[in-house]
């Protein structure tokens, strides 16, 4: 399997495209900065949000039960799924019971995490993703490359091509206005004909048993309000204690995500529409395990704004698909190893630990520290290579003995001069696109000994 490093190398073969990807996402980071700077209380908001999430995680079991009882009282059916398989089975059984074989779905990273689409399709249920970006990657048969901007990796000409093939737009048509209109017309007929709508959840309020879903397109509401059955899937970490806490989170979410002051729609679903069935599926799928990992539990504060991706200099230059996990970028790199340490062992290393992710995070997750911690955990669990292990052993031995280190350094520097080909070759990844530093005549310690007559 190709790892993040190898996939990034492939992504970087087209430098112009990397520039385009980087600049598009950097532009969003700048919009986020502008929106944040309009609120003098921004840092206070982040702190409050982080505190609320901290408190919620410390009382999560109670809040889940409170949410459940309120939701039941509101006329919602509540399901619990310990893992992805159970989640998918619950969805399928609701659909089967109602004889439904076609659904419309708005954005839900959780259903991506559970690979729900593939499961339903293999069971004869057709799924149409209604968020424009999600629809585009669905037509392209690709996973989303970004949690908020699913097709940020695609150029409009490529989308035009897809729409020409699937929606019958004119060949060569690449105007976003025209393409969006085509999708609008196509999806309108979908909304009007699907009897079940599946959505994700942005926030679930324990106090009232209501859920809040944020979209810009209105696709979640179009689907839900025209369907007989609404199925909402949520990770158990989506709980917030009180309705008024929404004030804090809604102020942070869109500003962090896209620089908008708020998403176009923030829809509060408390009871099903008259005559409608509403199901909530509360999904664990590794979250309780992550909650038990003291150094990583803060990752469960995440509200999925994607700001850490937009600011990440590595993400911008490697693309979301290089992470090979539903949630890419920095936050994905601390969530993924929890689910599968072996498969995602490369991700915590796909970072320079620059710390920008931590600074933009609206709930103040110490993302870069957790990346560092994951590295320790992965190596301790043996998820590393023999080359790395030996390299590190040798280095640590050299660093243990100053005289040995001094001698080795001197030897190394002479070798660089006498036999430069030992360093300047294809096996040295440093040298591939960078010159080696010029080795000086003497090291500082040699100079110091001579100049300052230091003994030893």
């Amino acid at each position, binding site marked *: 399997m190709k790892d993040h*490093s190898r996939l*990034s*190398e492939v*992504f*970087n073969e087209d*430098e112009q495209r*990397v520039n385009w990807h*980087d600049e598009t996402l950097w532009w969003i980071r700048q919009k986020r900065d502008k929106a*944040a*700077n309009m*609120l003098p209380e921004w*840092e206070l908001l982040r702190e409050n949000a982080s505190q609320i999430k901290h408190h919620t995680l410390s009382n999560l079991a109670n809040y889940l039960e409170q949410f459940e009882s309120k939701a039941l009282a509101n006329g919602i059916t509540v399901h619990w799924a310990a893992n992805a398989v159970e989640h998918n089975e619950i969805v399928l059984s609701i659909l089967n019971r109602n004889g439904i074989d076609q659904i419309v779905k708005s954005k839900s990273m959780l259903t991506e995490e559970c690979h729900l689409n593939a499961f339903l399709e293999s069971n004869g249920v057709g799924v149409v993703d209604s968020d424009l970006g999600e629809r585009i990657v669905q037509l392209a048969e690709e996973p989303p490359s970004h949690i908020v901007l699913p097709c940020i990796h695609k150029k409009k000409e490529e989308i035009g091509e897809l729409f020409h093939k699937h929606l019958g737009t004119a060949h060569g048509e690449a105007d976003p206005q025209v393409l969006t209109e085509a999708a609008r017309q196509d999806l309108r007929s979908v909304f009007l004909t699907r009897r079940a709508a599946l959505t994700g959840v942005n926030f679930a309020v324990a106090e009232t048993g209501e859920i809040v879903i944020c979209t810009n397109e209105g696709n979640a509401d179009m689907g839900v309000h025209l369907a007989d059955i609404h199925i909402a899937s949520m990770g158990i970490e989506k709980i917030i204690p009180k309705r008024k806490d929404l004030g804090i989170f809604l102020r942070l979410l869109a500003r962090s995500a896209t620089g908008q002051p708020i998403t176009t729609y923030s829809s509060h679903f408390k009871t099903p529409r008259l005559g409608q069935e509403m199901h909530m599926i509360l999904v664990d799928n590794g979250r309780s395990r992550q909650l038990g990992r003291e150094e990583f539990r803060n990752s469960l504060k995440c509200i999925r704004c994607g700001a850490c991706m937009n600011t990440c*200099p*590595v993400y911008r*230059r*490697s693309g979301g698909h290089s992470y090979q996990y539903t949630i890419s970028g920095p936050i994905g790199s601390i969530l993924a190893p929890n689910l599968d340490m072996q498969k995602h062992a490369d991700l915590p*290393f*796909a*970072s*320079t*630990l*620059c*710390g*920008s992710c*931590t600074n*933009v995070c609206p709930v103040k997750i110490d993302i870069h520290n957790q990346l560092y911690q994951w*590295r*320790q*955990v992965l*190596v*301790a669990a043996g998820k*590393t290579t023999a080359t790395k292990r030996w390299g*590190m*052993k040798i*280095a*640590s031995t050299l*660093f*243990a003995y*100053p005289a040995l*280190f001094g001698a080795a*350094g001197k030897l*190394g*520097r002479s070798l660089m001069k006498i036999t430069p080909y030992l360093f300047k070759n294809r096996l040295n*990844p*440093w040298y*591939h*696109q*960078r*010159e080696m*530093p010029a*080795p*000086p005549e003497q090291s*500082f*310690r*040699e100079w*110091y*000994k001579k100049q*300052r007559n*230091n003994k*030893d």
Partner: protein
Amino acid sequence: MMTVGLFVPCYVDQFYPKAAIATLELLEKFNVKVSFPAKQTCCGQPMANSGFSHLTQASDELFTEGFAEFDYIVCPSGSCVLHLKDHLHSVKHPQKAEEIRSKIYELVEFLVDILQVQDLKARFPHKVGVHQSCHGLRGLKLAQMTELVAPGFSKPVHLLNMVDDLEIISLSRKDECCGFGGTFCVTEEAVSVKMGKDRVADHVLNGAEYITGVDLSCLMHMEGILKRQGSMVQIIHIAEILNAN
């Protein structure tokens, strides 16, 4: 008289002795008694950032024994200092290690916060781009970070402004990472180099003759790219500018 132990990181010792010499001379200009303990090597970061923090014990002990006696420890690298501040532990001398963690300073923060330098008598008649190394910036908070909604400041720029005839150029991305990242520079070579190229281009396009910063690791990476491009733009550690006459 205040005593300072000079810590010269392994790669600075081997490849950039001039920066270490400038650090030493600069500190001595301010009437500080500086010693360079011979028994020093590395802060341990290369192992720890690669996930092998359990292999840093020997270098941690060495560091603790070598530096415990000083009033302050000063080092011309933000990254190494941050690592020691966060992670230095000693089994033999736990108390001493803890003390070191609170009395170790990166050079610029030592000059600004402890020595409270007001005047430098240095001259460097060039256009200079300031690279904000991430660990110095976001770890040691040597300057305000562009992500935060907070008043601006910059300790490196505060000092560079005292240097005669020096012109600081402005950048389109003030504090983006250069992509060095320790072993990241070889394990993620493609992204590392691309990040470096982009950072270098920002400085070059804005007219820098020199790129400076508090961390030679970043500068070494950018130097490698500049040299491969055949660029005339040079890298220089901030100590060498502050010590330039």
